[in-house]
């Protein structure tokens, strides 16, 4: 069989398990940009994010035979990416996964006064999205950009489904607070 665009991700994984490099190229072509962007939003460093991609897809090459198809391939890829990103962050001496570090990251973005000067709500919103804590940023990206369901986010992040819902709600509340501090009212909350 030739590997065509019509082949599903699951079929590609089955072929990768047999050592099919072409199938690997097709799968890489389909998913590497989203994997890169998800990783980049977590590690905030382009070089590290590029290294992550190689590591993630090399894991896919090695573990394809163990993929059971209980979740979508894209969900599996994002779960591996998250694991690799957190490992990379732990290796970085200047980063610790606690609230203090999260606050430090928030400080690296523009302060509310700078944001409000941009006078552009959309741009301010993007700035505030960047200023969220890693946990909040991650869940916002998974739901809005990667279009993952509650169940899939729970699987990727490794938390209960109810926690997924409440975490996103409080991420949105935090976002609203940042916007309000920047002088932008959206009618909620």
């Amino acid at each position, binding site marked *: *069989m030739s590997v065509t665009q019509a082949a599903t991700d699951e079929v590609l994984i089955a072929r990768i398990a*047999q050592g099919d490099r072409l199938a690997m190229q097709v799968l890489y072509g389909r998913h*590497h940009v989203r994997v*890169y962007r998800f990783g980049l939003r977590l590690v905030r460093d382009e070089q590290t994010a*590029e290294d992550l991609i190689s590591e993630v897809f090399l894991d896919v*090459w090695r573990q394809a035979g163990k993929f059971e198809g209980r979740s979508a391939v894209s969900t599996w890829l994002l779960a591996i990416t998250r694991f690799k990103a957190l490992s990379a962050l732990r290796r970085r001496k200047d980063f610790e996964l606690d609230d203090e570090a999260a606050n430090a990251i928030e400080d690296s973005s523009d302060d509310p006064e700078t944001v409000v000067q941009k006078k552009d709500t959309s741009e301010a919103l993007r700035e505030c999205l960047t200023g969220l804590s890693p946990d909040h940023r991650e869940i916002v990206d998974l739901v809005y950009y990667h279009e993952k369901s509650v169940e899939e986010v729970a699987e990727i992040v490794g938390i209960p489904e109810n926690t997924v819902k409440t975490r996103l709600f409080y991420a949105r509340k935090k976002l609203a607070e940042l916007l309000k501090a920047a002088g932008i009212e*959206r009618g909620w909350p």
Partner: protein
Amino acid sequence: MMALSKKMLEQEPSEIEMLLPWHAAGTLNARDARRVEEALANDPELARQYAAVRGEYEETIHLNESLGAPSARAMQKLFAAIDAEPARATGSLPLSARIATFFASLSPRALAWSASLGAIALLLQAGIIGAVLMKTQTATFQTASLSTGAPITRELGAAAPSRALVRFTPEARVADVTALLDSYQASIIGDAKGGMFRLQFDKAMSQDELTALLGRMQREKFVNLAVAAP
């Protein structure tokens, strides 16, 4: 419905409020999507919150899309690493993967033809069996008549498997008949006069055994008559 939205941050969010982001992304199941739609239609405050969610959704996509793409270096590094991996033993795939691979290997046209041929074969088989049943079961009730040409002495030597004549009810389906034959370990060896089928059991039975068995068979839902074959 107004209770669904919360004005104050201190209040716990409602289930519907928490589902708004997934509704915006279109990843809710049909039931939840309907619940959210109904709530939005009846709660202006929730609708305002949803407008904010839509804005977050759009800007999150915009933000991620602006991140660009990785350089070709990442791919080169990956395939260099793959080349350095030990050669993979080409073991057999799990059955599910083999089935998925097989169907994926067929062109849509081949797949459509295979399905059509399979359906035609099934229809033909069902038609033939159905025709035989219909033909034999429309006859009026008749008892099996004793063949005048039958020998009046028993055969010597190894006992032959017992046989019977059976008439099935008109509503008996092929599956019912098959199940019945299986349960009695019998097979149809020909159709006889008057809608009776000639059955052969897989063993020889004494007269008493056969009588008891046929009595039991006679009481089956899909059997009109069961008598010993001459």
